[in-house]
């Protein structure tokens, strides 16, 4: 059995304590949102899908066996929810964002207004490039290089074997580097 800090909350939620489930939502809300937001076109949809993810998790909690960390189990639901959404919508969220209106939610940005604007523009450009990657490549890149998940966790979330995860990640990084190198914007990538 793993030493997963979420297990006591899961047990309490299963015993009917809704407050325990609420704490699980608080703990994992942001990571679920971030992963879903990179897979769908806009933040409003990502918010809806974050809510769907937690409600599905809530109703399926009795099926969670505790063999893997709760976060992996939850992210698998989030991943599947987002994939189902984009498949039904017939598109894979490769749409540029409305950069002018986008904000980094909740982030407190240091520096003056000009510096903040520049950083935000840069972030939006990067987000657009990231969303230009195919879903499978984008998923592994997000889970590994943004969220810092282990290969095993990524395998659990995506349902792919660990070997495939490693290969996909290698290809995804290569593709993303090519995309950024071929961009007119200078991403300061070493040769």
């Amino acid at each position, binding site marked *: 059995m793993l030493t997963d800090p979420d297990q006591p909350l899961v047990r309490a939620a299963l015993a009917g304590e809704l407050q325990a489930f609420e704490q699980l*939502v608080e703990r994992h*809300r942001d990571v679920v949102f971030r992963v879903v937001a990179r897979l769908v076109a806009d933040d409003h949809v990502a*918010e809806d899908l974050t809510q769907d993810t937690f409600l599905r998790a809530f109703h399926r909690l009795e099926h969670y066996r505790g063999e893997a960390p709760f976060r992996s189990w939850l992210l698998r639901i989030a991943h599947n929810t987002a994939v189902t959404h984009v498949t039904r919508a017939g598109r894979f969220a490769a749409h540029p964002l409305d950069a002018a209106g986008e904000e980094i*939610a909740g*982030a407190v940005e240091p520096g003056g207004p000009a510096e903040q604007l520049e950083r935000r523009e840069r972030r939006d450009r990067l987000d657009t490039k990231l969303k230009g990657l195919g879903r499978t490549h984008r998923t592994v890149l997000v889970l590994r290089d943004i969220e*810092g998940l282990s290969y095993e966790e990524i395998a659990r979330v995506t349902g792919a074997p660990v070997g495939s995860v490693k290969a996909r990640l290698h290809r995804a990084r290569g593709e993303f580097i090519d995309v950024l190198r071929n961009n007119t914007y200078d991403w300061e990538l070493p*040769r």
Partner: protein
Amino acid sequence: MTDEAEQLTPAEERVRALLHPFSEERAPHGAALTTAISRTARWQRPVRRALVAVGTAGAALGGGVGSLVRGRRSR
């Protein structure tokens, strides 16, 4: 939770550094989102239980009727 030491190329290191700010993003309207999830879970739970109970009862009834019909046919 990165458990493997990776040998990244300088370009891959740069990609990771570029992507890092995304890891600090938070869900917009976070507190409101938690409240909405909790509120929905609260009202859905009894409804779902009732639906599951009705479904189970229906399946049991269907199974019973099926056994009865099969029993009559075999006589």
